[in-house]
């Protein structure tokens, strides 16, 4: 057997009480596309940080081309020939593409510009070297990151969840690039929790579960179900069917809503129309950064329309265009924001106090005074009913894992018995088990006749949840599709139509 490019032996890393990695062994062969598969919190990112020198291991050894090495910093890793493309890009928005590249790669501006164009053609990574990064789409930014890594001529390229930000068609382009790289002798470490992708591109897979290696397999020999089982340690939770519902009342309607943003980094909305009825889930698909946060602000009431824009947003049959968030909630509207820590919950406060944020209307406050016993009871009910794993209602919200906090917030909003529920990115950064539980709750709520609007980047999730899907692309909303009559590829096409990715 040839010497592996990179080997880890017995590598462990702990943060306080949390064992992020325990005795991990890993061998990456030359020219391999090697997957690191695991749920959120399984220790994938920590492992990559150890390899890239961002963190150093508590125990264990790292071998590079057969030689024992201590990788103390990212610059040492880069000198060895390790490049990394981060999930949250390490690009600078106020600089141009070539300026970003010049921070890492030596050379004059002219040389670098030519090289960026040349790499773009060679590997299918087209991008304009002179444009500012803030004006680029997420797909283009990722290309810049990859180009920047490639210019250092790496032997190993680490990609942290590279497809989580891409529309399906761009994923194919990325895979094409990765295959070309592997042919030229670059090994690739591909971190993901998406099983289909791993089966389609990776030659090896190492599976991590709560910090331990639970499998070293050739992913093509297993089906996704078996891989999932290795990854989460049990069978996938079952889904419940959406039962057919009679056509109910319109609970939310946006009528030709146009909203121009002054902020150059924000997306303006153009002529957005949608409606959600009782007993229906409407899904909004699209790559984030296409107006999702702006739309969410307008629907939740964080941004209020000027009085001249009346009748644009109607909830429960009432014009709410100029009403603030609290007034909209009084009508029976509930909202789960995208940002759990800071918007959905206050991380420094206990769960009980976080209950009060939106559930105060459930009699938890009387004449301005908090009824603490009632609030605690409400919180306990929420913890029990929604299977929130926490020491108790006095635990700080910020101490909960992403999945558990999201279950708590979704639970809190559902317990308000809303007529209209709006969930922005219901399972972003949430592990598979909790995601399935949250989706199940949403479908139950729909079956009880609630109108639900969901914004999500995960197409599979929308296909599981929604009765209808609309796609948000560059601030414009596509027509409404019936989920049962459409394929994910069709949605994908709308996600990038008129965008650069088609070219």
């Amino acid at each position, binding site marked *: 057997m040839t010497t592996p490019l990179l080997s880890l032996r017995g590598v462990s890393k702990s943060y306080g009480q949390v064992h992020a990695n325990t005795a991990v062994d890993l061998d990456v062969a030359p020219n391999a596309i090697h997957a690191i598969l695991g749920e959120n919190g399984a220790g994938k990112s920590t492992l990559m940080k150890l390899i*890239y020198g*961002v963190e150093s291991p508590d125990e264990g050894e790292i071998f590079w081309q057969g030689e024992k090495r201590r990788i103390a*910093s*990212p*610059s*040492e890793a*880069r000198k060895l020939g390790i490049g*990394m493309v*981060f999930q949250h*890009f*390490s*690009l*600078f*928005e*106020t*600089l141009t593409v070539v*300026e970003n590249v*010049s*921070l*890492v790669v030596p050379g004059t501006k002219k040389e670098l510009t030519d090289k960026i164009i040349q790499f773009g053609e060679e590997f299918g990574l087209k991008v304009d070297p002179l444009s500012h990064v*803030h004006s680029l789409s997420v797909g283009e930014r990722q290309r810049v990151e990859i180009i920047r890594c490639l210019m250092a001529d790496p032997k190993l390229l680490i990609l942290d969840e590279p497809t989580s930000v891409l529309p399906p068609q761009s994923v194919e382009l990325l895979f094409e690039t990765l295959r070309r790289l592997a042919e030229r002798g670059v090994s690739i470490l591909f971190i993901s929790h998406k099983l289909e992708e791993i089966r389609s591109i990776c030659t090896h897979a190492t599976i991590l579960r709560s910090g331990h290696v639970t499998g070293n397999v050739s992913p093509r020999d297993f089906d996704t179900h078996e891989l999932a089982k290795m990854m989460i340690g049990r069978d996938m939770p079952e889904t419940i069917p959406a039962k057919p519902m009679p056509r109910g009342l319109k609970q939310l309607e946006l009528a030709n809503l146009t909203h121009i943003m*002054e*902020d*150059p*980094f924000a997306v303006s909305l153009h002529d957005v129309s949608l409606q959600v009825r009782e007993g229906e889930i409407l899904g909004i698909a699209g790559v984030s950064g296409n107006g999702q946060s702006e739309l969410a602000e307008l629907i939740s009431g964080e941004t209020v329309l000027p009085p001249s824009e009346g009748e644009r947003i109607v909830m429960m049959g009432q014009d709410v265009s100029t009403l603030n968030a609290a007034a909209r909630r009084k009508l029976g509207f509930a909202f789960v924001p995208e940002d759990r820590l800071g918007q959905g919950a206050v991380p420094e406060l206990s769960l009980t106090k976080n209950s009060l944020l939106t559930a105060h209307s459930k009699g938890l406050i009387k004449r301005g005074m908090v009824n603490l016993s009632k609030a605690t009871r409400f919180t306990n009910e929420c913890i029990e009913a929604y299977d929130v794993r926490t020491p108790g209602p006095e635990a700080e919200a910020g101490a909960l894992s992403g999945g558990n906090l999201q279950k708590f917030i979704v639970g809190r909003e559902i317990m308000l018995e809303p007529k209209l529920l709006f969930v922005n990115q219901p399972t972003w950064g949430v592990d598979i088990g909790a995601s399935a539980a949250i989706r199940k709750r949403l479908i139950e709520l729909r079956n009880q006749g609630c109108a639900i609007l969901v914004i999500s980047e995960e197409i599979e999730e929308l296909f599981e949840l929604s009765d209808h899907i609309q796609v948000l692309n560059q601030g414009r909303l596509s027509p409404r599709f019936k989920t049962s009559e459409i394929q994910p590829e069709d949605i994908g096409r709308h996600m990038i139509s008129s965008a650069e990715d088609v070219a």
Partner: protein
Amino acid sequence: MNAIEFIISGMLAAATPFLLAALGELVAERSGVLNLGVEGMMAFGAALAFIIVYNGGGHILAFLVAGIGGVLLSLLFAFVALGLRANQVATGLAIGILGLGLSAFFGKPYESYTIKGISKISIPVLSDIPVIGGLFSQDIVVWLAILTSAGLWYALTRMKAGLLLRAVGENPKAVNSLGYSVFALRIGAVAFGGLMAGIAGAYASTVYTPLWADGMIAGRGWIAVALVVFGTWMVGRVFLGACLFGAVSLAGIAAQTAGLSIPSQILTSLPYLVTIVVLGIISSNKRLLKLNGIASLGETYK
């Protein structure tokens, strides 16, 4: 000399203390560090420089020592705010008060003494033009301050070091992951801020008004901080803001000598008001603010 000639010829010199301090603070803030101790660092530099010139040390040594004094105070700031990760605003205020105190302490024996300033260098031909000729007859520090502005603009937009400085202000984590030391970059930027503040103080006390009085910096450090923010962290705008401030303060003096019956308090507050209003209007452009604003400004790193 009429009022207009008076303003045109004196504007640049009046602007120089603000300009020097503001350029230093601009660099520090571009790296993401908010050092509010500018006023104190200026005062400290002013006292050191005055003492050296008064005792016959000469202007070159005076500027050098004042610069070093500013650097020392700024490194103390860096040690507390970056090294010990204390709150930058509170630390900056404390350093500012320390600098003011030190300047009062060292300057005490020299109260209301005067020294000789430095002579002006005139550009031939240009300085003979009527009305605006005075603009081309300035002391060496003014010329150097203008060159520094140009150099800084070039560095921030065209050189790797400048790009790196902007990068660390926008996203220090990413800079770290690229293999650069965030601390080294920021300490360097803060020290440059201290150097410029010290020199700005030296100019104020030994060239612009070569006399010592406690509290002679009189808020100029604060105006420098304001110029940086209202100038949206762009060198050109900070330069223009400093000139505007200089011009309006001279206009006030000209109005007083002309015997206009405006209370002197209003005239002295005029430059502050005009500068803030003008720069406030310019910087209300949200797009520019967003593009030039510093995402990590004042935040403690790690």
